[in-house]
């Protein structure tokens, strides 16, 4: 599921991404800063990680988050690619690339997008262990 009409790309996909290509395409003549975030599968004594999403809702949320960030921080180009499916340690999970006229807008915009995804987008992670599995606790979950 994806959209390239905005210049950037918004996608939930099983495929890996080439962050360099998105950084290159985020640049305009008026761009002064490009900030990139890449989330990676960390080895917490796991064999792999399974990422699932309520895809149609998550896709809509990513659009809304992009639009909020563009309006709030005057961003130029935004790419958000969140992977789903089975990923191995070291694999890329999430790419956020934002461009803006100035660095503060770009840093703030990138962080805003990341935090909004973590609190809102219906995406879950299940860690596959050698002797079973465990769900990664939600960002707003308590016992």
């Amino acid at each position: 599921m994806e959209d390239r009409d905005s210049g950037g790309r918004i996608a939930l996909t099983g495929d890996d991404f080439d962050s360099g290509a998105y950084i290159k395409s985020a640049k305009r003549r008026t761009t002064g800063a490009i900030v990139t975030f890449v989330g990676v599968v960390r080895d917490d004594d796991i064999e792999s990680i399974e990422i699932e999403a309520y895809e149609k809702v998550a896709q809509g949320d990513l659009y809304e988050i992009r639009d909020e960030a563009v309006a709030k921080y005057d961003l130029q180009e935004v790419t958000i690619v969140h992977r789903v499916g089975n990923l191995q340690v070291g694999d890329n999970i999430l790419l956020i690339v934002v461009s803006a006229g100035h660095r503060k807008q770009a840093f703030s915009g990138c962080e805003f997008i990341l935090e909004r995804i973590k609190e809102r987008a219906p995406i879950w992670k299940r860690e596959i262990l050698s002797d079973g599995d465990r769900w990664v606790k939600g960002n707003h979950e308590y016992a």
Partner: protein
Amino acid sequence: MKIHVRMFGRFKHQFGDWREVDVPEGNTPLDVLKEVVATNPEGYMAIFDDQNRIRNHIILMLNRKRISFADCSSVILHDTDELALLPPVAGG
């Protein structure tokens, strides 16, 4: 009427991916949730607290739109509606 109930995350493993629940006209999302967990005491405790209230961290969606807990007991469902039960999100 038939309501399509979808589960995600850990709820999918607890209750299955989805199920179609046949309930009388005039039922609310809360009625459907209670029907879903009626034969699953462990599942009931995963969704409801000891005051029989939906646990705070659970997210409910009706036809892919988030609904509040208040709506859960007041919105009237219609045939073929899709109700989704989501655990706290953990993307990023």
